[in-house]
């Protein structure tokens, strides 16, 4: 069986994506809608805080809830890490994904000033990938052991690690 295509929702998401891209051309590099009706905004890293505050505060886009904050490691790219923010709007019952990029050494603005929920998520991304967040109130390790060296979720970190247990 194949999931039936929901054309109406796809059109609405396309229209909303064009609306946001028209308002914020300084930071949005690309907008795409997946075949499963998921809207994605691809952002320049300078524009994280402006775009997230816009999506949280604007009347047509009240994405008040940060559902997830993760990173993706693609070692072959020049900026290997892709930071992904998943937002949910309770007023309009709709989700949106915001993606940025960074490499190992460039810090990224912290989203804690916009969404308090980003605190532990950013600690996890720092611990697992090594992406530094500027202006984070308390950036330290959260899942690895106290003296652990290395960032486990990177693609060049071996499956059983460097230290024998």
């Amino acid at each position, binding site marked *: 069986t194949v999931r039936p295509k929901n054309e109406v929702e796809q059109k609405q998401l396309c229209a909303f994506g064009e609306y946001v891209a*028209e308002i*914020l051309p300084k930071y949005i590099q690309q907008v795409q809608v997946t075949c499963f009706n998921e809207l994605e905004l691809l952002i*320049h890293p*300078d524009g994280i805080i402006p775009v997230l*505050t816009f999506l949280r505060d604007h*009347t047509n886009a009240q994405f008040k809830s940060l559902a997830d904050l993760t990173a993706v490691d*693609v070692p072959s790219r020049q900026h290997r890490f892709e930071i992904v923010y998943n937002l949910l709007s309770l007023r309009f019952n709709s989700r949106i994904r915001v993606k940025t990029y960074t490499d190992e050494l460039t810090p990224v603005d912290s989203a804690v000033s916009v969404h308090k929920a980003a605190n532990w998520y950013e600690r996890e991304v720092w611990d697992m990938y090594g992406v530094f967040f500027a202006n984070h109130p308390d950036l330290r390790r959260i899942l690895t052991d106290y003296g652990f060296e290395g960032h486990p979720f990177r693609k060049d970190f071996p499956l059983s690690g460097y230290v024998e247990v």
Partner: protein
Amino acid sequence: QTTGLVGLAVAENPHERLRILYTKILGVLQNIPKDAAYRKYTEQIVKQRFNLVQTETDVQKLQDKLNSGHIEEVIVQAENELSLARKMMQWKPWEPLVEEPPSDQWRWPI
């Protein structure tokens, strides 16, 4: 009487408060360039809501017409829009793209 929502007190005289907030938002929007899409769309939304607030004096009917939850939530949303407009004045997001991404950055599958 109560809103039914935690942390939101019932607003006495919501029409006055909304009138003040919407005039402030429109005042802030005058400072950004006229051709910016943000100014166009936000002015449209704010003027539409402002007209509804001025024509409808009954709170229940106003809530139904705005179709956006309780009046107190509408007030909170207007305050958010005001702070967003002030921040937009500093960030100026209507300018052209800051920097193009590297050509293979957003290619998927790799």
